[in-house]
């Protein structure tokens, strides 16, 4: 079953923060996060394995709550380059990813 992402869209000014959430109704093995710019392929950002870890690089980080079967992606001090559609992908028992519907993020100057 497809994970649910929220919000569906968000508009930010440069320097503002955003949180994107991803929820699943099934037990999760891992959660992936990808960013897709218009007309381009999705690009891998990070993966979180079950165990409730938090990861990050630069000003983008993510958390994974295994008990709640949720993951959140945190974008701090957003830059124009962060604009795009963010997808979470959920993995169950080491198989293929099921992707959420995406969150469209637009960062304005």
């Amino acid at each position, binding site marked *: 079953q*497809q994970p649910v992402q929220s919000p569906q869209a968000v508009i930010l000014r440069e320097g503002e923060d955003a949180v994107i959430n991803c929820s699943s109704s099934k037990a999760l093995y891992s959660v992936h996060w990808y960013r897709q710019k218009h007309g381009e392929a*999705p690009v*891998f*950002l990070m993966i979180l394995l079950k165990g409730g870890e938090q990861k990050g690089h630069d000003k983008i980080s993510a958390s994974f709550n295994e008990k709640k079967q949720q993951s959140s992606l945190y974008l701090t001090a957003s830059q124009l380059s962060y604009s795009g559609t963010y997808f979470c992908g959920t*993995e169950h028992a080491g*198989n293929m*990813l099921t*992707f*959420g519907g995406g969150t469209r993020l637009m960062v304005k100057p």
Partner: protein
Amino acid sequence: GAGVSQSPSNKVTEKGKDVELRCDPISGHTALYWYRQRLGQGLEFLIYFQGNSAPDKSGLPSDRFSAERTGESVSTLTIQRTQQEDSAVYLCASSPAPGLGYGYTFGSGTRLTVV
């Protein structure tokens, strides 16, 4: 190669014709995935190959869709008797191995338009 290569990048076909889409994964990646993305939508799983195991075909929308993979290399996705609702971008991805903490590397996709 350095990345996942897909061909053709664009394909316009007439309704009822068959089409074949090709994917060259990253060398050494045992897992290969096909996804479909309709305009403005998310990624819809189609089929998954892992090494020499039987493929997971659970996402194929109808028996008009089929896919093959030669060992751990090239894969082809075939759509027979194309319909207008088949119009979409078909994305291929590969990863070193599933379930071990690796992300997917996507190709640039094949944009299929059925007229």
